[in-house]
């Protein structure tokens, strides 16, 4: 079982417990990652509902409101991880679920928790070592962990691909079912159906789906509503 930051789910009950990290640790890790890898497109953290604004404020103070701060505010998505999201209240789940964020994808579970379950085995010995020796030991553990992840990379990506294609096929089936039902039961025109379909994700999905299923007019209506022209290539 993984532990959330301050909230422990036990048998469908939420128990508030004493744990927590200061925000400085999160911002320092963000700084290290930004310097090495650029702005991350998605930043997953257990408390993103509260940490997001602090990260943006910190970036403005750090870089004086430059491009880094702007990108952290507008380019980066801040979803809650799929396990920890269950520990937030319903409104927070609605606003911060990765399923409702643009270009975030399905996520990859919670990689830190998997790593912690592995590294936890060394806890007994590490706590009695001197600090410098513990430092080297943790470096070795992390190096071994990264090496093991490289060896498991192909199965991991194949599984992710299967999961994504399955979910995409299901979404396409549901989208076509909705469009056909709206046509049959409500007698709506293609323009009206295009205006009633709600989200940007539907637009991204409809580009192939609706065109392949002769719902070209609905897709054109979606494009017109978005201001991208009405021609389907």
């Amino acid at each position, binding site marked *: 079982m993984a532990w959330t930051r301050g909230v*422990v789910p036990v048998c469908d009950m939420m128990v508030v417990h004493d744990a927590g990290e200061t925000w400085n640790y999160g911002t320092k890790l*963000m700084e290290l990652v930004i310097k090495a890898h650029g702005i991350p497109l998605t930043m997953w953290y257990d408390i993103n509902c509260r940490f997001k604004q602090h990260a943006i404020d910190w970036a403005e103070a750090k870089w004086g409101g430059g491009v880094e701060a702007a990108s952290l505010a507008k380019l980066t998505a801040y979803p809650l991880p799929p396990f920890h999201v269950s520990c937030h209240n319903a409104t927070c789940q609605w606003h911060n679920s990765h399923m409702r964020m643009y270009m975030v994808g399905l996520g990859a579970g919670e990689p830190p928790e998997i*790593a912690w379950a592995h590294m936890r085995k060394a806890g007994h010995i590490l706590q009695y070592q001197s600090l410098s020796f513990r430092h080297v030991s943790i470096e070795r553990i992390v190096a071994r962990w990264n090496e093991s992840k490289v060896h498991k990379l192909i199965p991991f990506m194949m599984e992710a691909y299967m999961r994504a294609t399955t979910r995409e096929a299901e979404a396409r089936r549901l989208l076509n079912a909705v469009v056909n039902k709206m046509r049959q039961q409500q007698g709506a025109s293609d323009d009206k159906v295009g205006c009633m379909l709600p989200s940007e994700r539907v637009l991204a999905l409809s580009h192939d789906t609706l065109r392949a299923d002769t719902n070209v007019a609905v897709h054109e209506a979606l494009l017109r509503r978005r201001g991208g022209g009405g021609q389907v290539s």
Partner: protein
Amino acid sequence: MTAYRCLVTCLPVVMQPLDLSRVAAGQKVYLYSLDLLMSLSDTVDACPRLGVAAFSRSLMKRVSRNGCAIELTPDTVAKHISRALHEFTILTLGMGSPDARRDLEAAAMDREYPSNAVSEEEDQSVAAEGGAAGMEDGSSHREGQDAGLWDHDLLAACPACRGSQEYLLKIVESKIREGGLDVGEFEALLGGSHSLIHSMYIDGHFGLPHRASGGSSDHRPPISLKLLRDDEMEAFRRDPSSLTRTQRKKKGPCTVVFQADSEKRKMSRHHDRTGVMGAFCRHGFCLSMINMTEGACNGVDSGRGARL
């Protein structure tokens, strides 16, 4: 038993062979063999039929507390320890006071990292300068060090992330259009980095604490590839940007009861490092880690589940 003792004495950093008579007498034995034990634990997890009951996850606990009689066959010992040797195991065995343990560890590090055996004066001067210079480029704690055993190319970035740069750039371009941002600035920002990542996951872990009784650091850590040195974190804490105070919402979701906030400054009486906090990419590759000195720490054994 014989095989185990024989192979242990072959390891590169052995100060004292394991005296099994002292183990049998119930005297306390400190066994520092992280890579060995973790690789064995992996093996047992993957192959339950192997039958190496002594190499369960509780081995470290038993050995570090009371000592235990390790029942092994020569074949399994040879296989596992040769694997650990291949992976550059540090193995030190020590009995006695914490001072003796520190001496053993210092000798082990000097032996493996001779270029990093700096004097105390030099160490203090480096610490006094702080991580201010390292803060300028963000990742300088990874540079200018003789990594020796480490594969820099592998440790630099996740291979899967490096292989998907074109795809990530398309996503960035799409998001820039969506947000109505200035493309030119972002090209300047992203152009220097050829290892974009899609997702970063950060989380804290209180299962790797450090007891204050374990001893302070006489040596500066000779290598810092993923785990940030403490002096650099302290320099970050003194940075004005880290003192930014965000206006807390008084209404809205997750603002009424959040007891973690009241516990985050909690200092442990027994631990000077309460755990680690790490950043990972979406493939599970560790990008960076930080030692935590604050926050609730219940130790390794006294899990919160037990208290519930």
